[in-house]
């Protein structure tokens, strides 16, 4: 059984697969450059997590908040800002429709959005970086099972 964090990341990647703008161009924890044919596309990462003990009496429970980052990339000679906002709308709606990540988490919420543009390259390229806080619980001894 995999860590619940992995299960959440995979569930989120599944939930954003097949969206109108980005279709099946969804990649988890990608470290290699994107090709032009993979745009517009989404990258999904779990970048950090905070956790704390449930109570002082029961030290086995852990409340966790994992940051799931969804990056949307697009390339266009015009209306790039609109394309990024459309990607953002599609991702937000898809994830809000399953805030428990198929019963893995207690809640999921968009925490921040950043947008970047560059004129480098043969066409303008843009990025929308959405960070979602996903709250879930495990025991300290069984991080592979959501409770």
């Amino acid at each position, binding site marked *: 059984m995999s860590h619940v964090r992995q299960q959440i990341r995979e569930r989120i990647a599944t939930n954003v697969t097949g969206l109108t703008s980005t279709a099946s161009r969804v990649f988890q924890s*990608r470290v290699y450059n994107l*090709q032009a044919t993979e*745009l517009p596309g989404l*990258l999904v990462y779990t970048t950090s997590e905070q956790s704390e003990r449930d109570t002082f009496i029961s030290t086995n429970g852990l409340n966790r908040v994992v940051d799931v980052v969804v*990056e949307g990339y697009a390339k266009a*000679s015009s209306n790039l800002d609109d394309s990024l906002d459309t990607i953002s709308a599609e991702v937000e709606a898809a994830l809000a429709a399953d805030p428990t990540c198929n019963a893995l988490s207690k809640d999921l919420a968009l925490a921040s959005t950043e947008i970047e543009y560059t004129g480098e*390259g*043969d066409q303008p390229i843009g990025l929308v*970086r959405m960070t979602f806080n996903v709250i879930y619980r495990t025991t300290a001894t069984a991080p592979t099972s959501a409770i």
Partner: protein
Amino acid sequence: MAGAFLTDDLTDLFQTDDFASAATFSGSTINVILDREYLGVDVGGEVEVESSSPACFVATSDVAAAVHGSTIAIGGVTYTVIGREDDNTGVTMLRLRT
């Protein structure tokens, strides 16, 4: 104004039987040297995006009217000018996008 010793050789430099290609700019055929060097574009995310940095070198006198937004067709591809850099010795580099 560049001295004649700088501009005299431009015709040879832009011969199409060497490194130059024929291009269409503003209804005229001119010769340019096209460069499409690979560029990994860092947008600020986790990875870069593979792209290129198209630019062409051309005799300044051939593109006196070129400004941002002008178009130039090279090898069947129409590029839009996004930057103009005159070296003030008779050669201009046009930065392009598709």
